[in-house]
């Protein structure tokens, strides 16, 4: 594995990109949830991440782990619907897995994603194959891990993982939903992709796109914040 340690500055970029992308895609995410769900997914995420950005500068940045835990608490407590608890739990668990490290290695990032997956499973009483965001998050994590282990530079690894995430999200169209509102429609949930899984693909692609091209230690020459506030 190359040295891909990640600083607070990078974590800021990641979380801010997720937030901004969710806000920009409010309508699209809502429409994804309209097919067999109730259409509120885009609205819930957008309002929640808006709240996160409102208090952005005041979030405790003692270390990336603390920052993620605090972000997760805000998301859990302020976003409604299923997404608030699910996404909040994911952020909190990732933060806990990060511990108090100032810079994160690629291995640590993968462990954080695995912790997020376990958190979602526990919170949602759900598993792979239930047609939820897990079905694109897990393949994303798998490929990211493989590529980093194979020595790919982080941006390339992320691009590969995002492509896999999209493929997996598209593949949810074949699945019958067993969790979430879509589950009530049984067989009729087939034929359309899961909103959460697809949203994750959009976020992954955006993250891969904004990730700085240079290889090597991100901690040293990390990307700048987008400063679009």
């Amino acid at each position: 594995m190359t040295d891909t340690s990640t600083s607070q500055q990078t974590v800021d970029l990641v979380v801010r990109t997720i937030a901004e992308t969710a806000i920009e895609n409010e309508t699209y995410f809502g429409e994804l949830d309209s097919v067999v769900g109730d259409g509120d997914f885009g609205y819930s995420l957008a309002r929640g991440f808006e709240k996160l950005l409102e208090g952005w500068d005041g979030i405790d940045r003692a270390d990336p782990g603390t920052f993620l835990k605090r972000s997760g608490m805000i998301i859990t407590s302020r976003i409604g619907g299923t997404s608030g608890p699910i996404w909040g739990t994911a952020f909190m668990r990732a933060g806990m897995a990060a511990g108090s490290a100032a810079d994160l290695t690629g291995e640590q990032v993968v462990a954080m994603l695995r912790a997020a997956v376990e958190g979602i499973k526990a919170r949602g009483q759900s598993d792979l194959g239930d047609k939820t965001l897990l079905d694109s998050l897990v393949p994303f994590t798998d490929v990211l891990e493989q590529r980093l282990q194979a020595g790919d530079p982080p941006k390339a690894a992320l691009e590969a993982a995002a492509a896999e995430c999209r493929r997996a999200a598209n593949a949810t169209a074949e699945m019958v939903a067993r969790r979430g509102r879509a589950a009530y429609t049984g067989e009729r949930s087939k034929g359309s992709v899961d909103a959460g899984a697809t949203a994750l693909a959009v976020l992954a692609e955006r993250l891969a796109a904004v990730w700085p091209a240079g290889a090597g230690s991100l901690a040293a020459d990390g990307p700048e914040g987008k400063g679009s506030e």
Partner: protein
Amino acid sequence: MKKFVNDPQRFVPEMLEGIALANPDTLKYVPEYNLIMRADAPRDDKVSIVQGSGSGHEPAHVMVVGKGMLDAACPGDVFAAPPMDYVYETTKRLATPKGVLLIVNNYTGDRMAFDMGREMAESEGIKVAVLKVDDDVAVKDSTYTVGRRGVAGNFFVMKAVGAAAEQGADLEEVVRIGEKVNSVTRTMGVALTACTPPSKGSPLFELGDDEIEFGVGIHGEPGRERRKLERADRIVDDLLDAIVPDLPYRSGDRVALMVNGLGGTPISELYILFRRAYQVLAEKGITVGRSYVNEYCTSLDMAGASITLVRLDDEIEALLDAPAEVAIRVF
């Protein structure tokens, strides 16, 4: 979108403000948590009854806060479970020595928010119970899914536990009553049109001019199947064919019969449905002891209706019969 709305993001808070302004003597409003509560709550001598749920189902649940019904409601945005904070802060504010009952319609988001809110409140020494409502027979129950949805039948649970709490029942007793009412309550709905969430601005799904969604959910989730529009009587027959055998309701049973409008259907049509349901039940030897025809749990502006049956016994009937004073009872 043809709606009376200002800023779609302010839809819920403006509605809640309206409710508070219309009921200055009886209700209190805490904007931070979308909280509508009885002005005289919490009262030390009774269990507090709280409902969460998403908005868009009015009069459920914010408009049935009042004496003999809910002590508080803290809805989320339209069709979204409340954030956990709302539940936690509401539970804290409603805490009494006798405890707090949180009624939850069985949806993933609601259950998570209420379970987490309860945990947090309990960690501060508050006595809390969570009661699940899942009356929708449209959803085939299975170990692979999350179980049935809570729909209009939640009215009967709220009414019964509200009356019991008003009479001083303790938390365990209130839970027992709520579970019992839920266990004898079954509902199924049908949509003639889709609803339009204000923030979406367009209908949640498309229905052809001659199509109906049979077994629709109260958030516009698709139901058992899409069908051709039929005569009112035929629709009632098919709904009852799903509802009656499910419990089952049997000859000799005495029931409460509710025909609930989903928001866009006028009450005249609800009585046409009621008439047939009453007749079909009579043919089956089932007596309608109590009748409910109105909007109780809606899905925004969706045209459609649901039918609910509750098997009555003396205890349930007395609780349903007890007085209640709520915002929608303005008269």
